[in-house]
């Protein structure tokens, strides 16, 4: 295996990790705070993708400046509406939430099909994102770093930092952590937990929308694209440790690198199976993930 291929796979690992993280962050947030297994998370990614498509239809090739705010606000609003109408009524009933959000995911898929058609819609990366940095000369001659992948990596890092800051440095984050540790006590100290639940769910949905906008540059935008991400997003959340944003980041990095390594050494079709075997073995060893959160809420759940 030559150096160019090896470094290429290393880059693949980082790129896959950034995509996994982007897809999983919103999920980790709502799962962590509210124990809501949101099966419709993939459809928020899809929704972000369609909003990106609309942005590209409205403002032409330089659509990204509009796409990200639109995807964030649009998905967050949709998330807030769902929280208010459905999910709020099912807290503490994890199986019912699972079923309800699965139903919502089907409704959203069919809605996309009715509005945009069952075939996907084209979203093209703007011209300044097409192309790649290529290494010339030396041992790594020919190694390329596509701009789109670098862009998704940067986006992923940015979202991670923003979420980390929000949770650990802002008043909102303090409330979230307080509720996460002990809902009743936080509530008795004046935290409006209902409002907080809605805000966190909306934030998680908004992040999924942003992820969908970024991923639209690399993948299709169609009614069923959410299901392509949902399984891996759950893998990241479970391996990382439920409720841990940092754990999610480390897990995404780990899973991305294992995937790239397995794909490089064996075949792409075998790698997915290897990844799942590794995750199953890992969960035998650490059933609560990499960074288990100690909290009363979790023990009750």
């Amino acid at each position, binding site marked *: 295996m*030559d150096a*160019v*291929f090896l470094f*290429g*796979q290393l*880059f*693949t690992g980082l*790129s*896959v990790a950034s*995509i996994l993280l982007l897809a999983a962050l919103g999920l980790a947030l709502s799962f962590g705070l509210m124990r809501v297994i949101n099966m419709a998370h993939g459809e928020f990614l899809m929704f972000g993708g369609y909003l990106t498509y609309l942005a590209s239809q409205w403002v032409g090739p330089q659509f990204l400046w509009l796409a990200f705010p639109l995807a964030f606000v649009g998905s967050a609003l949709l998330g807030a509406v769902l929280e208010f109408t459905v999910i709020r009524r099912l807290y503490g009933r994890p199986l019912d939430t699972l079923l309800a959000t699965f139903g919502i995911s089907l409704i959203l898929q069919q809605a996309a099909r009715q509005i945009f058609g*069952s*075939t*996907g*819609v*084209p*979203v*093209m*990366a703007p011209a300044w*994102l*097409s*192309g*790649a940095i*290529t290494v010339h000369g030396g041992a790594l001659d*020919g190694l*390329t770093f*596509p*701009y*789109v*992948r670098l862009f998704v990596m940067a986006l992923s890092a940015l979202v991670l930092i923003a979420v980390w800051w929000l949770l650990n440095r802002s008043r909102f984050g303090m409330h979230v952590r307080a509720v996460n540790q002990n809902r009743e006590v936080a509530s008795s100290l004046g935290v409006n937990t209902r409002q907080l639940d809605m805000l966190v769910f909306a934030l998680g949905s908004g992040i999924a929308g942003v992820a969908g906008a970024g*991923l639209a*540059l*690399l*993948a*299709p935008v*169609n009614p*069923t*694209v959410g*299901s*392509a*991400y949902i399984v891996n997003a759950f893998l990241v959340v479970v391996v990382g440790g439920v409720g841990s944003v940092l754990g999610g980041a480390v897990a995404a990095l780990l899973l991305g690198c294992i*995937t*790239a390594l397995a*794909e*490089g050494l064996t*075949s*792409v*079709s075998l*790698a*997915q199976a290897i990844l799942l075997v590794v995750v199953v073995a890992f969960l035998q060893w650490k059933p609560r993930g990499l960074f288990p959160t100690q909290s009363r809420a979790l023990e009750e759940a």
Partner: protein
Amino acid sequence: MTYRNLTASLTLLLLGNALAQGTVKVGVLHSLTGTMAISEITVANAAQLAVDEINAAGGVMGKKIQVIKEDGASDWPTFATKAEKLLTQDKVAAVFGGWTSASRKAMLPVFEKNKGLLFYPVQFEGNECSPNIIYTGAQPNQQALPALEWALSKGYKNIFLLGSDYVYPRTANLILKKHIAAKGTNLAGEEYVALGGTEFSSVINKIKAAKPDVIINTLNGDSNVSFFKQYQAAGYSAATLPVISFSIAEQEAQSIGPALLTGQYATWNYFQSLPNAANKKFVAAYQKKYGAKAAITDPMAHAYMDVYLWKAAVEKAKSFDPVAVRKAIVGVSTDSPLGKITVDKNGSLTQTVYTGQSGAGGQFKVVAQSGGVIAPQPYDALAFPGKTCP
């Protein structure tokens, strides 16, 4: 839409019983819901169009055709159940349907048990030959092998095989690998990605390391969107590394985004741009009924023509009995939108193979075609030696 179809079918069913004297029933069995609906709804539409045209012109042997439409729902056991229902309850004279090989393989025993007749409109991997199925899509020697020969004639020596991970790409590539070895050319690499897969970074890295001249692509569905986006992001284009695809037709080109496909190749028995008179009439009629911008593909053209083939065979047999029709259909020949086709005794078509290059708007321009029609070979001599149709 599905609900409406269902009600329409039910209404027709009731009407049909009342008017049984003047009608003959046929089944149209495609996925109208689920992941395959994207491809199969338009194929069902094309079959319906042919039925409408035939009915408007007086029907078959004086009887109007009544379509019983069923939804396979992208679920292979459902295809078998619905096929059984069409054959035993509705007693249809023929069924037009199926897309994936999995759905066909699920329906096959049902048609053999009930002595029914299925017209299957999609290109497939061969290695199957049921007397109860008319396989009108391309056999491997009518799509994959001509594409390989065309690539070799263009001077491409290193060939990379990329496909989705299921029976059609695996079998098609098994055949291609035998022929690549037999021709003494080089297999640069081979990779499969799960159906619906969206991540191609490793695949592209492997392609870069293998340095192929051409990629033969059997990816199915939306994985193509991811692949072409990421292939382009890695700096490739049709000029530097051409891709020949077997599952990208005009409709897929629309959803992938024509700009991503510019200059890439596809091999089929039909392109919407074919200039023959039968095709112009078909395209105009379809777009009049289903929208002026509707893209028309090889499986749709096959499905449309299948209904006419069945009609010709019925009239030749002077009977609607599926066994008699199957006997009579051998040798039936027609000038179809695909050009001149003839039904071979193995139940597949002798047809022309075209290689098209994708241009603006997602239409393909024919750049090469087989010298005359090619007879179907269900069993490739190199990959499946000694196997023949019963």
